[in-house]
């Protein structure tokens, strides 16, 4: 008997009587304003949120906060004037020297400051991790209150890879001292478009 059959038959013999899948009831958000909450939590996880009204504002803020950025990469039309586009066939290793990667996220979560990114949009999976800095553009109406609301939106979404990112890469492995920029981006900026 193969290991597969052995494992599955032992499990089948040993598993308890069937128990139903519980319902996840609808929980009212424990805060009033999703955008406000997102801004608050995103700050607490080490992120830098900006509520903006126009694309021009985003470009100005990028110039102001990343004056030394030599290589900005993005496929967002909002900032195409200051960023290099890329294609799905590019070698992920070739992005090792990217200073700033900018992406639009169509879903953010207020309760934990996370933004949803998938490979239909970013194409190169390594990009949000390998870039020194990460910035995300979010339309205000795309901020969901809780993770339940978020998963209701993406329950049937097709993708090869997707991730929730909440703030810059971080570690507290050395004596619980929080350090931003463990292996991934050292900063994460969110531009929340209130248009």
């Amino acid at each position, binding site marked *: 008997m*193969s*290991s*597969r059959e*052995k*494992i*599955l038959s*032992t*499990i089948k*013999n*040993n*598993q*308890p*009587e*069937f*128990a*139903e*899948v*519980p319902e*996840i009831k609808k*929980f009212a958000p*424990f805060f009033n304003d999703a955008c406000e909450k997102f801004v608050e939590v995103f700050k*607490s*996880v080490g992120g830098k949120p900006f509520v903006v009204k126009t694309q021009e504002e985003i470009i100005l803020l990028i110039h102001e906060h990343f004056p030394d950025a030599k290589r900005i990469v993005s496929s967002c039309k909002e900032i195409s004037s200051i960023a290099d586009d890329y294609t799905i066939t590019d070698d*992920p*290793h070739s992005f*090792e020297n990217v200073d700033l990667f900018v992406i639009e996220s169509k879903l953010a979560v207020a*309760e*934990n*400051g*996370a933004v949803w990114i998938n490979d239909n949009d970013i194409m190169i*999976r*390594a990009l949000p991790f*390998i870039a020194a800095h990460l910035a995300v553009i979010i339309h205000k109406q795309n901020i969901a209150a*809780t*993770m*339940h609301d978020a*998963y209701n939106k993406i*329950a049937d979404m097709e*993708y*090869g*890879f*997707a*991730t929730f*990112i*909440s703030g*810059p*890469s971080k*570690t*507290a*492995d*050395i*004596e*619980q*001292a929080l*350090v931003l*920029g*463990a*292996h*991934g*981006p050292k900063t994460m900026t969110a531009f929340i478009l209130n248009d």
Partner: protein
Amino acid sequence: MERTGHHPQLAEHFNRDEPRVNWHDETLWFIRSKRDKIANTIPEWEELREIASQLKNNVLSNLSEYLIAFEKNATRNGVNVHWAADAKEHNEIVHSILQKHGVTKMVKSKSMLTEECHMNEYLEAHGVEVIDSDLGESIVQLAKEPPSHIVLPCIHWKKEEIGELFQKHLGTPAGNADPQFLTNAARLHLREKFLTRKVALTGVNFAIAETGEFVVCTNEGNADMGVHLADVHIASMGIEKIIPQRKHLGVFLRLLARSATGQPVTAYSSHFKKPRIGQEMHIVIVDNGRSRQLGRKEFRNSLKCIRCAACFNTCPVYRRSGGHSYHTAIAGPIGSILAPNLDMKQYADLPFASTLCGSCSNVCPVKIDIHDQLYKWRQVLVKEGYVPAAKKVAMKGMNNILSKPSLYRTAGKTGRWFLNHLPFFVKNKFNPWYKQREMPEAPKQSFGEWYRKRKV
């Protein structure tokens, strides 16, 4: 690292340096407090724990069907699924994938399962270099130690010692113990590995039967850095990591990081469904005693664990004895339930490394009855003749009340009364928990009492 001896001797060793024990204790309590603080901000916290617990009950009751569905869907997604009955088979499968690609170097993000399987040792013996990329894990790896905590692998290390370790291995300047500086040194060192390794291995936090995808949670981004730059991604998972549907992640991801470190969610919750173009993806589904534990009615609940380590951080025995005193990959209260399933003789001491205070069960996000199971293991182990003589005397002498969960609530009160009024009764050499240390000040009320009051 010596891993010989049983919990009392190893704990005694750890307790020789009292200031260090106090520091260890306080650090973990600090994390426990962060967990409380954030849990209290979620009004439905207790309901979430209940749903998570019921979801895991459903998973255990339907595990064979879920695994078959997961395999089918993952295969359809273009992922290679392997089955390993035990640690040895897991290690052989990983090695065969490396051999197929002619690769002798691999990066790995945190996976307690590969610790359980002693995979690094196995691969090293076969000429494969494994680089641990989680900062805490890379620190203990440089020191040739196993992790002492499942979420915070080097929680027992001081920054000055890490500075010295990095000076020796990474060439950082002497005397620099700044966490920011040391983290950056590790970042530079590991970046080169990420860029050059062809194979990356990760663990799995959740595997979704419905879609065949799996989720890996990290704060550092090291799992993603490894796999998105590698030609081959290997993911190792225990059979119990299954959840039914994607939407159930909403429940588990709300609980996991809040319980673990007091964060609202980990920095990265990455969902892997299909390999990227040109990449090869493998999943190794490992049993290693889990299907047997599933058949032990009293202990099967231990398979609901989502490895948040809240039970470690809250445990008075773990905090004051350190992870290595448990001489098993998964330490702490939950490890003390899992280990005897693998080897009753070798781990007979672990269910006794507990005060049965019940704090673990109170914080567990999937509501495992941890302290009840520890008590039940004691009974099984005594009956099977695996309990050391000294422990038996001590148990008969005073632990009678403290180890009966049916009397637990009263016993807590009684225990505190004893501590306050007749300390010599508890502080004597027959109590294995009073060697070389002061018993803790008796709290005015137990967590359970406090909690019940808080609720009304």
